[in-house]
């Protein structure tokens, strides 16, 4: 019996590539030390900075909840009742102007207003991107593009544009169209379109071609084939990509706010720069709760469409 076992153990084995493993190990170590040295890695500095961080945390505690809950911090116009400002109600022309000025200028400067504006920016930017990327995805997929030249040019352009980070797009747009949430929306729409086109066109390339054949065989034209053979196979993926990007765009919209493109990021930046840590802490906490809620809702929604 042991003889039989030996017989199997004697079968030729592939040689162990010890040299190769060693080389890979050395290469990984070299890259890691190169990266740490280049970035002046210094844990001592981090440790030395700890008391300052503790100090900052102490200064921001307790958060100034008044900014979120105190009606005074919303600077409602004295000329109007709060119902007249917040709810649709009959107003004179002059009152109308006051009301609009408050909504346009004061409301986005409040914590609640800024947060809601960030959400609005993420929704609008993602929706525009979904609108653009749906047709572009078909052009950028090998199996649905009308011509190889269209496929290659759309793919190359989108790949190049995707390499631009969204805050860089934001900086360019700020110098072009100025500060404000519309700039943020445009930057998000731009950056998100390039990502969605890639994801969507890859989903289209992975469909079951058999259904396409079957619909072509009925004498259907190009758009009928898209509608019956392609869209039903990729729609769930597309919706799921859009929801996922919305989730990412909530965070991206905050970062865009830091560079001046509206929303809660703008407030947070202003508070940090003026050392109002107790106020900044409120923005940070609100943002954490918002991101958690959106993450949870997004996961639920994406499970529902699949």
């Amino acid at each position: 019996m042991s003889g039989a076992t030996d017989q199997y153990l004697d079968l030729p084995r592939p040689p162990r590539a010890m040299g190769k493993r060693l080389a890979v190990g050395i290469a990984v170590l070299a890259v890691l030390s190169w990266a740490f040295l280049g970035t002046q890695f210094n844990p001592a500095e981090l440790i030395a900075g700890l008391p300052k961080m503790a100090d900052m945390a102490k200064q921001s505690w307790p958060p100034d909840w008044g900014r979120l809950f105190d009606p005074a911090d919303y600077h409602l116009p004295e000329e109007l009742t709060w119902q007249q400002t917040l709810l649709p109600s009959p107003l004179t022309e002059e009152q109308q102007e006051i009301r609009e000025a408050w909504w346009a200028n004061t409301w986005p400067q409040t914590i609640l207003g800024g947060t809601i504006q960030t959400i609005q920016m993420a929704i609008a930017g993602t929706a525009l991107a979904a609108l653009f990327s749906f047709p572009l995805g078909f052009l950028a997929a090998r199996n649905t593009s009308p011509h190889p030249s269209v496929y290659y040019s759309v793919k190359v352009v989108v790949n190049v544009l995707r390499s631009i980070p969204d805050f860089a797009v934001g900086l360019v747009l700020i110098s072009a169209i100025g500060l404000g949430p519309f700039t943020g929306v445009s930057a998000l729409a731009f950056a998100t379109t390039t990502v969605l086109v890639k994801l969507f066109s890859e989903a289209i390339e992975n469909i079951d071609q058999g259904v396409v054949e079957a619909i072509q065989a009925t004498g259907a034209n190009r758009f009928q084939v898209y509608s019956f053979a392609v869209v039903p196979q990729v729609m769930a993926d597309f919706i799921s990509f859009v929801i996922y990007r919305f989730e990412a765009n909530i965070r991206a919209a905050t970062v865009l706010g830091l560079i001046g493109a509206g929303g809660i990021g703008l407030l947070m930046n202003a508070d940090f720069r003026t050392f109002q840590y107790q106020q900044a802490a409120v923005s940070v906490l609100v943002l954490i709760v918002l991101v958690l809620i959106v993450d949870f809702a997004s996961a639920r929604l994406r499970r529902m469409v699949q």
Partner: protein
Amino acid sequence: MTRQPTSILLPRDLDLVQVSGLHKTYPGGQEVLKGVDLSFRPGEFVAILGLSGAGKSTFLRCLNRLVEPTSGRILVPGMVVDRPDDAVVDIVRVKGQELQRWRRRVGMVFQQFNLAKRLSVLDNVLSGSLGYAHPTMSSFRLFSEQERARALRNLDRVGLLPLAYQRADAISGGQQQRVAIARALMQCPAMILGDEPVASLDPKLSLSILELMRNICREDGITVLVCLHVLDLAKRYADRVIGFAGGQVVFDGPPDKLDDISIRRIYQARTEELKGFSA
């Protein structure tokens, strides 16, 4: 307003399709069809036999140009593609709308059924009328009441009316193939091509699907061409058997003329090895 499609009745003694010198070489250099000459009559039930790679599937796909033939001719009477002058048309040379008009007269069923799984059974059946439907409306999956009625009638004919609003992936394989047949019927086809239509089904379902296809062939005078690999099924249902081997036709005749020599030629093997084929 689009008109309701009607079926075409050709005189029985006129050929529906005349194929001559059909060659197909794939881009890799693989020559799959090496000069095929065949013609088909209206209302024939034809079984095509052959090993994998013999060229059966490529031949069927050349007929509706899902595969582009390298050379050869496929002639059909002009009335089949709704030409007013009724001149003979070479399908190898048509393109655009005229190709779509030919395709809408040729139904096709597949081994894997190829239904749009997330659409309803009814929408899948309706997709068979795309060649006749309003191009824009139908792209939004909107069809006239007459078309919906026709779809439900065809669904009833294959025995699946109660499943009209089920999703296509919620029904069994045999039912999916029936939906695919109803989709083909929506085309008011002159011909139905079956690419191994029963190869994914159990023996009992295979019989019921082939029986359904033969009834359609008999009742509507539709030419049916099916690739099969089970010899007994071909013998049982076909009016005519065509054997393919190495990209050429090696047998063409009624099933009772299929002797051991021709079977050997089709399967390129000794008869004893063929016991399994005719189980």
